[in-house]
């Protein structure tokens, strides 16, 4: 099994304070890895380092053996990293299908002039993109909503659309930032199915941040626990659940 993401000794310092230090992780193809930890542990900071929003102070990020140092968010997406956001960031005033089709932008090739003169390549690529977008929406049972405004969707569907939009960029690694936040147990159940489906149908690596332990323990093969920017435990859900350091980080130290 080849590794998709590999981080070594990742560290970032903001104003003298290390938000993340000595962060190591490996995510393999077809694997779902959870990143958990108390609030403010530095989980989203790790995502921002991976996607190039922040520049690491030191350390290496490798995507399929390729060093990503110095690459912008856009370039990293082209390399194969896609993400969702903790606070949903959809294109609210665009239709659902346009939200998805926008992700195909870099893999379409007709120029501005070809669009303006409506040359054959425009029609061909647009048609193909529309079909592909509908197909993707169909997989997640959203094709009926294709022409709705994304901002008018119910909360759960908005989260799902954000995942579809990320998937549409054809990533090797999908980063999900608290996908279950604000969902009720039934919606969370539904989301777990969706994430499983993504892994099975698209064969990509998934790294997810989540507070909902039933979800994390239910679908992750591997879990990394962060506290105060440092990895305090790594292992399978069973190992993590019984790890005293993790329990202490979440519940506080038992007073003797």
């Amino acid at each position: 099994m080849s590794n998709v993401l590999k981080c070594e000794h990742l560290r970032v310092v903001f104003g003298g304070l290390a938000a993340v230090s000595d962060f190591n992780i490996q995510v393999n193809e077809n694997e779902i890895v959870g990143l958990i930890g108390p609030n403010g542990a530095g989980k989203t900071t790790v995502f921002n380092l991976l996607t190039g929003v922040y520049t690491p102070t030191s350390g290496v990020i490798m995507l399929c053996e390729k060093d990503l140092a110095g690459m912008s968010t856009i370039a990293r997406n082209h390399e194969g990293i896609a993400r969702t956001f903790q606070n949903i960031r959809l294109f609210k005033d665009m239709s659902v299908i346009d939200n998805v089709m926008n992700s195909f932008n870099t893999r379409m090739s007709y120029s501005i002039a070809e669009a303006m003169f409506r040359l054959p390549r425009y029609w061909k690529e647009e048609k193909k993109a529309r079909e592909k977008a509908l197909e993707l929406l169909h997989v997640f049972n959203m094709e009926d909503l294709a022409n709705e405004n994304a901002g008018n969707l119910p909360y759960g569907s908005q989260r799902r659309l954000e995942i579809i939009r990320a998937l549409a960029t054809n990533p090797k690694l999908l980063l999900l930032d608290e996908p279950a936040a604000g969902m009720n147990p039934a919606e969370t159940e539904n989301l777990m199915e969706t994430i499983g489906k993504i892994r099975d149908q698209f064969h990509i690596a998934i790294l997810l941040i989540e507070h909902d332990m039933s979800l994390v323990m239910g679908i992750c093969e591997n879990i990394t626990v962060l506290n105060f920017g440092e990895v305090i435990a790594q292992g399978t859900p069973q190992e993590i659940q019984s790890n005293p350091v993790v329990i202490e980080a979440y519940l506080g130290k038992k007073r003797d």
Partner: protein
Amino acid sequence: MKELKLKTPVRYLINTVLIVVLWTLVTLFVAGAGLKGEYYRGILITIGINIILATSLNVVCGYLGQLPLGHAGFMAVGAYAGAIFMKSTPASQLLRAGNNAAVIPYIIIAVLISAVVAGLFGLLIGIPALRLKGDYLAIITLGFGEIIRVVLTNIDSVLGFKFTYGASGLARIPKFTSLNVIYIFTVICLFLIHVFMKSRHGRAVLSIRDNEIAAESVGINTTFYKTTAFVFSAMLAGVAGCLYAGYIGSLYPSTFKFMKSIEILVMVVLGGMGSMLGSVISAIVLTALPEILRSFSDYRMVAYSLALVLMMLFRPKGLMGTYDFSMGNTIENIVNKIRNGRGSKHE
């Protein structure tokens, strides 16, 4: 009941018919107005110029979601470029001889020159300015627009020969902007904006407006698309400037003060940001309104500004919001509604 779904060629056909019908109506109206025809022609041409200005600003303002206040600068650059070219051609003599057809190639070249020159300025200004956002972008583009105006006023003293004729004005420009010319170019500009927006490039621009960080995360080259939309908008403003020069016949830098940019912005916002139909309607209304109010001459500008404030207080999202009109969709909806109405009666 099967829903009516119009094919693309049918939609194009409907719009073409609509454009021809409107053209016929406008022409008949001016011809039938007798002595007042010349007055109406002037207003209609101004409306056309303002439609191009408003819809082109809407590209950056409504679709890209940035706030530039230097649109008059691009209009000025286009106007001077087109005017200086037209003055170097025999267009004046041809127009005086009534040989209108022979001027057409010159007009096309002039419009293209204006578009290219204004586009170059758009690129030159857009690259640094678009690094800033919001009100900072507004003030920096306002600055560039004012610099363009000051340069147009004073460049002759630096060059040492007559080029823009400064504050005394560039006069005797061939008056090539007829009603037909403005009509055709307005339609072309609207069409170009439409086809640009309904493509992968337009989607990318809209996605930057809705959420720039998310657009980057799905691989949209935000810098490229911001610059592209800015340059595209500047080019169209240049076209409007060129047609303005050909209508008015003499150019003064003081026409292109920042108040001009603000007037155009007002049209866009009143119409509804991101709505092309809104920009068109408000360009028509705001051009015609001061003319209609002419009989109250002293009070008309007060009434105009009062209308502006009241409009914003009662419809802060503008006339049309972000609604965009499509003749094809409207017909589809009406037909489907009628069919469904009948269908439910039969049941």
